[in-house]
């Protein structure tokens, strides 16, 4: 099996995991000492997440992805149950004004992270199954759209605006790639827009947050504070950074140095060149995932691959976009680098699926290498 999987992808992901643990340690040390009395608390947890995630990835790499289709109904059902469990008092835990975790004693588990992957698997399944009916709105597009919308609203109610939007975005990309009529998608989008906007505007804190990134200096000690501190980290980086462990902004200035703003800390410590190289590795993984998906002959696998690649890219773009102040502040993790178990494990599983996809294409690749190569070239030329 190992001989067939896509090695560059595996190495790149493994590299990110290692860098992730290293930087969660560097970025969280001060924060960790302050809130837990021990500088290793977050780093050790992240190391544990990495082990769990790695095992999950290895498992999924060996698990025939086509069998995911048989589990799709229970998976969707369990996801709904878990998402609703968050609202049960005693089980759900509230952090930072958001109710999105299920308390598991040592860890809090965020079902919304997994919901994204489940939605991808589900949509890949349903869109390929109903490929012929897709042009029919009521029987083709509507049922999956309703399920995605239901999940979107549940997650939105948990104050997980960012994850909800992300889920919706991934969903839309998959509908688009999966062959849904653009006319239908546009009308659905236009119809839901007023609902979305009202929702955003009604909740005042979101309105303030969403606009604050446009000029953080309007409120440098309030809503603009995070972003200004992030800018400071970038401004202090230079070409070669301050050196590993030497970030100044992580020392109490950035409120969440090891989660949402870890990229700022990394840039401050490693400098512009290595920070851009790291972004390059993300782009590499994304492109690799896309190429794997393209090589898959099975439509389900192909759509699954595109979905995972899109989710991965969306996370990277949203996270770094927020850190650099081009997108409104939202709590989206940077895959494998941000501290957090749910996101880490979810992406590990997703990467495992990709690796399995790459293995399944291996023989075909060998056989039809020329053909696919030419196909790729013509597509790029187009």
């Amino acid at each position: 099996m190992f001989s067939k999987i896509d090695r560059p992808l595996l190495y790149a992901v493994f590299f990110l995991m290692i860098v992730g643990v290293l930087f969660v340690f560097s970025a969280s040390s001060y924060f960790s000492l302050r809130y837990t009395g021990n500088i290793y608390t977050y780093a050790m947890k992240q190391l544990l997440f990495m082990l769990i995630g790695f095992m999950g990835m290895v498992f999924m790499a060996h698990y025939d992805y086509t069998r995911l289709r048989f589990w799709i109904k229970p998976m969707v059902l369990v996801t709904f149950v878990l998402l609703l469990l968050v609202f049960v008092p005693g089980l759900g835990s509230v952090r930072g004004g958001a109710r999105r975790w299920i308390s598991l004693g040592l860890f809090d588990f965020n079902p919304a992270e997994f919901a994204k992957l489940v939605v991808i698997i589900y949509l890949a399944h349903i869109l390929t199954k109903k490929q012929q009916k897709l042009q029919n709105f009521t029987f083709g597009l509507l049922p999956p759209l309703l399920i995605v919308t239901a999940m979107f609203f549940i997650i939105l109610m948990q104050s997980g605006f960012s994850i909800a939007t992300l889920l919706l975005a991934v969903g839309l990309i998959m509908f688009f790639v999966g062959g849904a009529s653009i006319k239908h998608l546009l009308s659905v989008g236009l119809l839901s827009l007023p609902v979305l906007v009202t929702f955003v505007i009604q909740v005042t804190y979101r309105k303030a947050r969403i606009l604050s990134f446009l000029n953080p200096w309007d409120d440098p000690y309030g809503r603009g504070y995070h972003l200004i501190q992030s800018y400071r980290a970038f401004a202090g980086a230079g070409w070669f950074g301050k050196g590993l462990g030497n970030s100044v902004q992580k020392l109490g200035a950035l409120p969440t140095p090891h989660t949402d703003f870890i990229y700022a800390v990394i840039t401050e410590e490693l400098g512009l060149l290595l920070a851009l190289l790291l972004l390059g590795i993300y782009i590499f993984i994304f492109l690799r995932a896309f190429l794997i998906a393209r090589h898959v002959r099975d439509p389900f696998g192909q759509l699954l691959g595109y979905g995972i690649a899109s989710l991965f890219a969306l996370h990277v773009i949203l996270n770094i976009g927020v850190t650099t102040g081009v997108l409104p502040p939202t709590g989206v993790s940077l895959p494998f680098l941000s501290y957090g178990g749910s996101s880490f494990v979810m992406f590990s599983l997703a990467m495992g699926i990709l690796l399995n996809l790459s293995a399944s294409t291996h023989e075909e690749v060998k056989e039809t290498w020329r053909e696919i190569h030419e196909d790729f070239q013509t597509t790029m030329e187009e």
Partner: protein
Amino acid sequence: MVNKRATLVILGFLLAFVLLFYRIMTLVLWPEVKTSGTEGTFTQRGIIYDRYTNALTLNVEYYDFYIRPARLSEETRQWLITHLVGMEGKVFSLQDMSVLESTKDFVYLKRRLPYSQKNRLETILTNYPGKWPSDSWGFLKKNSRYYGFLETAKVVGYVNIDNEGLAGLEFFFDERLKKGENLYTTLDPLVSRIALEELIRGITEASAEYGSVIVMKISNREILAMVDWPSYDPNVYTTISERNSINYALSVAYEPGSVMKVFASTFALQEKLVRQDESFFCGGSIEIYQTKIKDGFAHGNLRLAEIIQKSCNVGMVQVADRFTATRWYHTLTNLGFGKTPAIPLPGKAKGILRSLSEWSGLSKYMTSIGQEIGVSTLQLALALGTLADHGWYESPTLVYEGKEKERHQVLDSTACETILHMMEKVVGENGTALSARIEGLTIAGKTGTGQIAKENGQGYYPNFFSALFMGVFPAEKPEYLMVVAVNRIHGPKHTGGEIAAPIFSRIVRRMIIQTDYFGGKP
């Protein structure tokens, strides 16, 4: 179809990645000016405390208002000019606005704006009807100092617009203060205030150019007050000039005149060159090496005590006649004359004491009556401290640092006590400084009237003097000493007894009434 649509998606993502690349580069390589402000992670500058650990300096925040004229259109420029000049409180003048016409990328329109003014300015600018070009103006928060005590201004010093020490302790300890270290000084703001007020009054009455006062606790030589005039307000840069930024207590040397007689007399007693009952005749003048040394009038027969009491030059010169120049010279150096005092302040004067090889035959006479020698007020205070402390010289304390201090014996203990006793008579009937007398407190003092050498080296100004008074109190058990110097007096009254002694007594009197120094508290 799937692959075609996927290609569109991939291109969309790649475009987003490229934009991120560009954005990250911009943030790192061309950050906005505002990001370099000092808020956030910043070590507060260390505080300078007085001897009761009350702060002499406060850390405060000011705002620098900047404009980037290159980004403004002609219209916005005109709007800015009318609205800023029209602002209440006359913060901006029309002249300030001329920089707006330039094509500079970045100018400070006003620095050191307090919070209230910054807010008012911000309100005006945000009410601009149009849309400002991005980052075309803004405020940079700057940390600075506020000094609550003008009387300690010279010693404490001040910082520049970048919060870096430029004078006094702020300058000397800049590195340590920047790291957040605090300084604990020996200064007493109340005594300093009293001293400065009385000094200013004295200088004004005498029509003098400058003056200084040092009040010192003899044990440990702790400086309670070191004030001088003219001075400045360290909070207002425009009040600081070349003339008033000199610390006249330690940076300027002048001829001390007769105050030197007490050191010469102690030396004479210690070397057993004179007996206390020996008398000298003063006929009003005496000639040595073709130089006539005069007194105001003929004192007749005088003993050493009366030479000091009446400050008789002719008598003193006869005593000095018996000095070995070498030993007298070394005593002067050991008393700290001609040497830089060990005090943690910039601009210490070494004073003027010609080296022994340059001494003429006249030198030992002249130095014993305080000519041919230049001293600073601080040097005089330290020499007087030696006399009051049984002949032990000790370097001054201004900042408590727990450092090893220089301390060595210069003069004989019995000789010092004898001379101090004689100095009590100066502040009495027939003494030169009756005006320094205070009921209920014995003072051992000495007046001095220094002549001022012409800048071209051609002798002395005939009508231009320095008046000095130095004293130790209480005389029977010396605890404090004070040196008052009023320099370059233009007025008709110019002697130490007429000008400096009254300042001295007024300060001591107010110390008794207004402070706890004589009520048992240290």
